[in-house]
């Protein structure tokens, strides 16, 4: 039975999280001896969609109804579920993005499927359908078995990675049609943050700073370091709460949970709530003037020192490496 993966698109092309979802679904399909079919909603550029073939997808189905060019969880969930039924599909995969999460749970209801969101590895199907997911805000993992015939899995961005092979997928139009009453919201505007770095949940490199920076006027050295690395900036909660940095930069248990390859924490003590959102980063570097700061226990590399001296030197050293 084929596996269906919903692929988010932007201007007709798969988004970065779509390539990861395709890689995950492709791997699961291969593990179970099945085909992997991708589904896109709204305008789709066939040449761009065919590229999903290099990630394990054999066929892309696009439902290019113009009303689906903006996001609506109700209409999206109906389109995906109905297409899954037409195709006789039992397993649907999503990327756990803002939109992916909102539709995955609706699709699970429509398909009477058990759902695991927050998945970090492909299902183990040797004895059931066991999915590893994050729990307790990154402090633990749970293994959940889905027992219903239909299954929905949403994967955490950056957990599985993008695995590019070769090949090209065929692109076909889907058969599902929607009526106006399936639509329930009107998108008025999308406000993008300026800058060309990846958004935090998807970022591979993150430079983060806390109250140790003393004030918002001192963030120049943080931004300089982020810039030479091509990293996204983040911050601790109190820094966002007092308005030194915007809320969307707040990482931790009550902010954004991230799992970049590299997390550099500067002037952050490493409180348990902060660690909860960042401790799944692959490599953690801590710069703090207090050798007793709890963050050092969670770090791979550490410098005990004054951020105002260390960070500019680090930026220079990285610049040197990059120009070498």
């Amino acid at each position: 039975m084929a596996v269906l993966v919903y692929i988010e698109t932007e201007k007709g092309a798969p988004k970065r999280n779509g390539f990861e979802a395709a890689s995950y679904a492709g791997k699961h399909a291969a593990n179970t001896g099945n085909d992997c079919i991708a589904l896109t909603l709204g305008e789709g550029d066939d040449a761009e969609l065919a590229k999903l073939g290099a990630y394990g997808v054999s066929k892309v189905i696009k439902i290019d109804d113009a009303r689906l060019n903006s996001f609506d969880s109700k209409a999206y969930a109906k389109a995906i579920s109905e297409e899954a039924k037409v195709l006789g599909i039992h397993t649907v995969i999503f990327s756990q993005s803002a939109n992916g999460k909102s539709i995955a749970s609706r699709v699970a209801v429509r398909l009477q499927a058990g759902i695991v969101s927050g998945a970090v590895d492909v299902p183990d199907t040797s004895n059931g359908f066991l999915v590893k997911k994050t729990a307790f805000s990154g402090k633990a993992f749970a293994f959940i078995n889905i027992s219903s015939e239909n299954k929905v899995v949403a994967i955490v961005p950056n957990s599985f990675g993008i695995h590019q092979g070769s090949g090209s997928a065929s692109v076909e139009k889907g058969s599902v049609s929607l009526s106006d009453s399936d639509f329930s919201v009107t998108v008025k505007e999308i406000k993008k943050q300026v800058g060309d770095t990846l958004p935090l949940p998807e970022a591979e490199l993150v430079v983060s700073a806390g109250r140790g920076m003393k004030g918002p006027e001192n963030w120049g050295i943080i931004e300089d370091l982020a810039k030479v690395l091509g990293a996204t900036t983040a911050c601790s909660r109190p820094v966002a709460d007092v308005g030194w940095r915007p809320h969307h930069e707040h990482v931790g248990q009550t902010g954004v949970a991230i799992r970049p390859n590299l997390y550099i924490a500067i002037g952050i003590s490493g409180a348990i709530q902060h660690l909860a959102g960042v401790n799944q980063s692959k490599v953690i570097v801590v710069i703090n003037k207090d050798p007793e700061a709890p963050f050092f226990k969670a770090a791979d590399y550490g410098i005990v020192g004054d951020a105002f001296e260390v960070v500019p030197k680090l930026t220079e050293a990285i610049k040197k490496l990059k120009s070498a």
Partner: protein
Amino acid sequence: MKILVCISSVPDTTSKITFSDGDTKFNTDGVQWILNPYDEWYALVRALELKEAGGGNVTVINVGGPDNDAIIRKALAVGADDAIRVNSNVTEPFQVASQIANAAKDGGYDIIFTGKETINYNGSNIGGMVAELLDMAFVSYASKLEMSGNIATIERDIEGGKEVVEVKTPFVVSASKGLAEQRIPNMKGIMMAKRKPLNVVEEVPSEARRAIQKYILPAPKAAVKLISPDNVEELVDLLHNEAKMI
């Protein structure tokens, strides 16, 4: 306006996470339970602000056992008018959503709030499921919500920005940071909460679709490698050659 706020009981953020029964159960010994922060700080407070501005009623609903009455009273102390607890031994999100949808279906609620996720299972499942079960619109991760008549303008967090949407009541919305400012209950609120109605209703059956088999903790980190602040080149070298990150 009639507003329903879904609230959940979660372990305090400083709780030590351990497991019992061969790592199949979360060990609740010594765990302090709190209202899920997203439910308490943002969803409930924004609901109360809407009521204060336009009149109406704010009901909180929890699906769980009698131990949850403490966090329900807390929500009443913050300002909710009344509460429903669906008496249940919760095992999965669909079970919770089914109970909420069942309790809400004849309630005539204009808005159903949830938090963006619980801090124990981080599933973000309940809002979407309730909306689907009730065939309503669902707007997730709201960081701003303004009402004008029966139309809400909502700003929601998306990767790398915000999306502004308009939606008509009734709808389901999940609350993220910024939607409101946390309120600390005062003495009067705490006293009044004791007399507010907390209606306990029995669970309706729902099909089991998944089960937790075991938990594990992340592998412990090796000791940190400390580098002298006078030798940042060494850190760059390690990140480049050992960790292969830059």
